[in-house]
């Protein structure tokens, strides 16, 4: 019984069917209003959204998550099985390990992620969950030749001093990232802030690095073959 189960999960065919399943569910989901910008899927961590969204709206994502979960086990067992045999290249298994870490990272973010958006004028403040206040000391920006903001920033005061937040340069503080998304200078300077927590970010980055190393090894091995 266990041997049969092991052989099933070790099967290449299972992996191919699961990949097909993930592709089909994602393709169907891409036409769903859930995946649109207003679908609400990006407003909260995935697991919270899945618990709240009606099944008629989220069924494709449930199926996709189920396929990925079995694919996770399939990739893990395939790699363990191949590593037990001598003389095999380690490159594909590094790529599998990277993939597994990236799936784990998504799970971490899907469970423990946090996102909050707020529009604040200069001089206002917001609080962290631990009670620390962040004061919006100054909001500034420059209008470009086409009438759009070419640069903008917000200076935030925390207990450890003043910090600038700009597009692509968020402020990381106690595991949270503070992002400035938009700025309006008149009638009074106002900025749109987002506070994010992505507990899976580091794991995803490590997974991506391991995947890349495996990928480069594979390319080197396949050179000229």
């Amino acid at each position, binding site marked *: 019984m266990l041997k049969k189960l092991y052989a099933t999960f070790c099967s*290449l065919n299972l*992996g*191919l069917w699961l*990949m*097909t399943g*993930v*592709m089909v569910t*994602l*393709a169907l*989901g*891409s*036409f769903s209003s*859930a*995946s*649109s*910008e207003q*679908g609400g*899927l*990006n407003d909260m961590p*995935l697991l919270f959204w899945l618990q709240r969204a009606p099944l008629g709206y989220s069924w494709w994502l449930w199926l996709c998550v189920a396929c990925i979960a079995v694919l996770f086990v399939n990739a893990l067992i395939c790699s363990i099985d191949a590593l037990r045999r001598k003389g095999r290249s380690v490159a594909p298994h590094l790529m599998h390990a990277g993939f597994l870490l990236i799936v784990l990272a*998504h799970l971490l*973010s899907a469970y423990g*992620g946090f*996102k909050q958006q707020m529009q604040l004028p200069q001089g206002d403040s917001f609080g962290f969950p631990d009670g620390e206040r962040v004061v919006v000391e100054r909001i500034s920006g420059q209008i*470009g030749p*086409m009438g*759009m*903001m*070419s*640069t*903008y920033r917000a200076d935030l005061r925390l207990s450890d001093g003043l910090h600038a937040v*700009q*597009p*692509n*340069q*968020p402020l990381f503080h106690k595991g949270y*990232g503070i*992002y400035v998304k938009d700025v309006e200078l008149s009638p009074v300077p106002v900025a749109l802030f*987002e506070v*994010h927590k*992505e507990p899976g*970010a580091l794991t*995803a*980055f490590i997974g*991506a690095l391991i*995947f*890349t190393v495996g*990928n*480069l090894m*594979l*390319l080197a091995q*396949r050179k000229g*073959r």
Partner: protein
Amino acid sequence: MKWLLITSALLFVASIRRPIFVVALGCSLAYLASRGMGLGRLPLIGPQDTLAFFSGSLGLMALPFIYSRQTAGIRWFCWGCGALAGLFAALALPFPTINMPLPPILDTYWFELHVALAFFAYGLFGIAALLGIAFLQGGGKPALDLQYRAALVGYSFFSLSMVSGGIWGYYAWGTYWLWTAKELWTSILWIFYSLYLHLRLKGQSWERGFAWLGIVGFLVTLFTYLGVSMLMRSSHSF
């Protein structure tokens, strides 16, 4: 400088010989360089610039393949790569150029790396599709081996593009992943080529299927790049 783009499109389509292809590629790269110098950044915004960049990427990525000994017997291969690159250069022509500076959120090397790598990958997936056609027309095993190599290198570029996109997203948007149509189709394309590379393990009996998948992969690529932008609303639309 639009005449350079027009010249590259015409020469690519006429590239029945390799030197013509090289001149066409030179014109394409000169056009992209002139746009880049004028803008002070890589030309990657708007349909004209992205289609021209795609055409140039396809030509650049095709270069080692058209000079490969394995494609010497495929008489139409150089022209096929040229026709594909010429098609996208011609498609770029009707669109106006967007000459604005990068919006602050896009003004980072991670964005430029993300998009450029994706186009290199798309180009290689196009070449893999042509090699799949060559195999199905009797091009033999070398055509299929080259198809695998083109797709593997394309997959590597595409994976790196996803990694750089994730890093950019984390710094720009606060998350390395968003549930939008473009991200979903990007994942579909990545999984499709993951499946393609795994299918090689099935052995000789799957050779024709393997070649066909290389062709279908390019259709998925085109939908991911053009179809999603035209048919679906997404923050990634050009």
